[in-house]
C-alpha cells in the first residue's frame, strides 16, 4: 500500500515539470503573436461575461442588483426568525470555542476551535485586504458601515447553514465525514418530504466548483501577483501563476502536507500581526478616528459623491462583506461539519463568530486604515470625494486600487510594511486556495462520485485556473469571482428557508436543556 502510494507520488513528481514545460511552451508560442496575459484576459472576459451579467443584473428601472437584495433579505429573515441569535448566543459561542463544554474523553477529536480555525483560514484572506480596498475605493468610507452591518446580519445566516451542515453530514464506516449544503439539501429536503432537493444540491455543487475556481482561486492568485509586482516591480502574471500552481499542485496532488501544515500555522500569526499593525496605525492617528467615523456614517447615507450615491456605497459594502465572510454562501458549512459533537447546534453557535472576526473585526481594520491615512482624495471645499476619469471609483493618492491601495495605506505610517503585507497576502492567498480546493473537490465528488482519477482531474483543473487568475486583469476576475460565489448563495439560501424550522427545533431543545442543566460544563 505504502509502496504503491510512493510510486504514485514519484509519477506525480515527474508530471509537475512536464506540466510546467507545457505551459512554458505554450507561452513562448503565443508570445510571438500576442502577450499571453492579454490572450488569457480576452478569452476570460468574453467567456464569462454573460454569467456575470445574469448574477448582477439590476431590478428593472433601478441600479440595485437583485443578488444584493437576496443576501440582505436572507440575513434579515434569519436574524428575525432566530431572535437575534448573533447577540444572544455570542457568549455561549465563546465558551464553546474555549472548550468549556467539551467532554475530556473526546480529546483527540476535532474540537470546536479547530473547526472554526480551519473555516476561518478559508475565509480570512484577500477579501479582507484587497476586497475591502475595492469596496472603499469605489463606494467610499460609507461602504464600511454597510459592510459591518452585513457582517453582523450574516452571522445569523452562517449559524443556520453550519448547524444544518453538521446535522445532515455523511459519516462513513471508516470514520471520515463529509458535509455541506449538497448533503443537507438532499437529506434535509427528503426528511421533510420536500421535492427538488437533489436538483438544488446539484446546482449548488456546480456553482461551488465555479466559486472554488473563481473567488477561491483566481481572485487569490490575481491579487497575490498584484502585491508581488507592487514590491518587486512589473513582470508577466503567468510567471506568478505557474509558480503558485506548482506549489498548490505539490500540496493537493503530490500530498506534500508539510507545506499546508506550515501555512496553517503561519496564517493565524499573520492574521493577528495584521490586526495589531492596524491598531498601531489607528493609535498613531488617534486624533483622526472621530473624523474617520464621521466619514463612515455620513458616507453611508449620502455617499459623499461616490458613483451611485449612498446606494453605491451600500452595494459595495454588502458585496465585499458577502465575498469576504461568505455568510449564506454555504462554503463554511463544508469546513465546519467535521467537528466532533453530539449537538449540531453547537457548531452553529461557534460558526457565528466567523463573520464577526472576519468582517466586523478584520475588514473594518483595513477600511479604517485606508480612510485614516487619507488615501482617498476629496475636494477640500465641498468635502465630496473626487472620482477618476471614468467616474467609476474614487481618486487615490498614487492611483492605487485593490491590494495596492491597502499596501499604500499601511506603509504610509509604517515604512516597509508592503514587504510584510506581500508575505501576508501570499500566505492568505495560499491557505484560501487550499481550503477552496477542498470545497470544490467535495462538490466535484458529490456530482461525479469519489475516485482517485476523478479527484485528480479536478485538482489539475484547479491548478490551471491558478495560472489564468494570475494572468487575467483584476476587473473580469473579480466580477467572475463574485458571480460564482453569489450563485452559490442563491441556491443555498433557498434551501435554508425550507430547512430553518429544523434549526429552530434544535435551538429550542438545546436552549431548554442548557437552562435545565442537562448540558453541563466540563471545565
Amino acid at each position, binding site marked *: 500500500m505504502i509502496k504503491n502510494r510512493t510510486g504514485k507520488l514519484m509519477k506525480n513528481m515527474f508530471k509537475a515539470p512536464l506540466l510546467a514545460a507545457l505551459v512554458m511552451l505554450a507561452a513562448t508560442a503565443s508570445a510571438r503573436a500576442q502577450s499571453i496575459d492579454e490572450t488569457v484576459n480576452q478569452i476570460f472576459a468574453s467567456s464569462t461575461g454573460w454569467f456575470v451579467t445574469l448574477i448582477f443584473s439590476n431590478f428593472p428601472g433601478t441600479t440595485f442588483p437583485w443578488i444584493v437584495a437576496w443576501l440582505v433579505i436572507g440575513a434579515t429573515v434569519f436574524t428575525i426568525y432566530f431572535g437575534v441569535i448573533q447577540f444572544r448566543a455570542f457568549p455561549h459561542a465563546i465558551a464553546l470555542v474555549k*472548550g468549556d463544554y*467539551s467532554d*475530556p474523553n473526546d*480529546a*483527540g*477529536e*476535532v*474540537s470546536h*476551535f*479547530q*473547526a472554526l*480555525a*480551519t473555516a476561518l*483560514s*478559508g475565509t480570512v484572506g484577500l477579501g479582507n485586504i484587497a476586497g475591502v480596498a475595492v469596496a472603499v475605493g469605489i463606494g467610499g468610507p460609507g461602504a464600511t458601515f454597510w459592510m459591518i452591518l452585513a457582517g453582523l446580519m450574516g452571522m445569523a445566516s452562517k449559524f443556520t447553514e453550519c448547524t444544518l451542515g453538521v446535522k445532515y453530514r455523511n459519516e462513513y464506516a*471508516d*470514520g*471520515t*465525514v*463529509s458535509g455541506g449544503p449538497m448533503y443537507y439539501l438532499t437529506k434535509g429536503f427528503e426528511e421533510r418530504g420536500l421535492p427538488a432537493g437533489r436538483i438544488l444540491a446539484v446546482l449548488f455543487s456546480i456553482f461551488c466548483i465555479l466559486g472554488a475556481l473563481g473567488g477561491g482561486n483566481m481572485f487569490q492568485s490575481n491579487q497575490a501577483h498584484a502585491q508581488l509586482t507592487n514590491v518587486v516591480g512589473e513582470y508577466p502574471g503567468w510567471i506568478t501563476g505557474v509558480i503558485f500552481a506548482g506549489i498548490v499542485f505539490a500540496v493537493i496532488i503530490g500530498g506534500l*502536507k508539510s507545506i*499546508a*501544515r506550515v501555512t*496553517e*500555522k503561519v*496564517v*493565524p500569526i499573520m492574521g493577528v500581526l495584521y490586526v495589531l499593525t492596524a491598531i498601531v496605525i489607528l493609535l498613531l492617528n488617534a486624533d483622526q478616528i472621530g473624523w474617520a467615523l464621521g466619514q463612515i456614517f455620513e458616507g453611508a447615507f449620502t455617499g459623499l459623491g461616490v458613483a451611485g450615491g449612498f446606494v453605491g456605497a451600500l452595494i459595495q459594502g454588502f458585496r465585499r462583506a458577502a465575498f469576504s465572510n461568505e455568510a449564506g454562501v454555504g462554503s463554511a458549512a*463544508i*469546513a465546519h461539519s*467535521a*467537528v*466532533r459533537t453530539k449537538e449540531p447546534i453547537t457548531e452553529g453557535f461557534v460558526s457565528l463568530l466567523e463573520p464577526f472576526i472576519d468582517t466586523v473585526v478584520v475588514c473594518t481594520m483595513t477600511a479604517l486604515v485606508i480612510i485614516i491615512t487619507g488615501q482617498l482624495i476629496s475636494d477640500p471645499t465641498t468635502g465630496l470625494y473626487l472620482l477618476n476619469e471614468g467616474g467609476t471609483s474614487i481618486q487615490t493618492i498614487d492611483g492605487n486600487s485593490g491590494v495596492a491601495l491597502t499596501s499604500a495605506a499601511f506603509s504610509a505610517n509604517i515604512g516597509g510594511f508592503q514587504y510584510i503585507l506581500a508575505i501576508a497576502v501570499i500566505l492568505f492567498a495560499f491557505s484560501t486556495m*487550499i*481550503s477552496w480546493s*477542498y*470545497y470544490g473537490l467535495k462538490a466535484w465528488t458529490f456530482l461525479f462520485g469519489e475516485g482517485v482519477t476523478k479527484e485528480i482531474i479536478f485538482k489539475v483543473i484547479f491548478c490551471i485556473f491558478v495560472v489564468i487568475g494570475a494572468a487575467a486583469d483584476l476587473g473580469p476576475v473579480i466580477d467572475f469571482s463574485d458571480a460564482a460565489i453569489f450563485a452559490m448563495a442563491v441556491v443555498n439560501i433557498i434551501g435554508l428557508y425550507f430547512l430553518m424550522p429544523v434549526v429552530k427545533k434544535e435551538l429550542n431543545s438545546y436552549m431548554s436543556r442548557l437552562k435545565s442543566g442537562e448540558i453541563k460544563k466540563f471545565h
Partner: protein
Amino acid sequence: MSRKILLGYDESQSAKSAMAFAISLAKSEGAEVVVAHVLEWSPYSFLTPEELEERHKRRKEEIHRGETALLGPVKEEISKSGIAVSTVLKYGHVVETLCDIIEETGASQVVIGRTGHSSLSARLFGSVAGSLAQASPVPVTIVP
C-alpha cells in the same frame, strides 16, 4: 486496596528501563502498576480541511495502535511477573494529562523514563520527565 504505581510509557528505550524499575518496585511493595500512554494533542492546533475530515478515523487508528502495539505487550510482560496491571491511553498535553491520571487512579508514585531526545531541545523546552517532576502531586522517579 493496594498501592498503585503509575508508569508513564512510550516507545523510547528509557521507558523500557522504567518498566523494569517499576516491576521490581511493585514486587517489593506489593503494589499494582498502572501503565499510562499519552498521545500529544492540543484542541487549539490547526488542521487542514482534509485533516479535519479524517480526524475521527485517524484517532481510532492511533488508539488501536497504542493499545495493541504499545500497551498490550507491556501489560503482558508486567503481568508475567505476577503483578496486577491496568492501562490508560489518553490524548492531551503529556504532563497535564499524566497529572490528571495520577489523581483519577489515586497512584501514590510515578515512574517515568528520561526520554533520550536531543539535549538541545530538552534544554530549550524542558523534557516531559523534568516537567512532570515539577508538576506531579506525588513523588516521581526518573529512570535513565
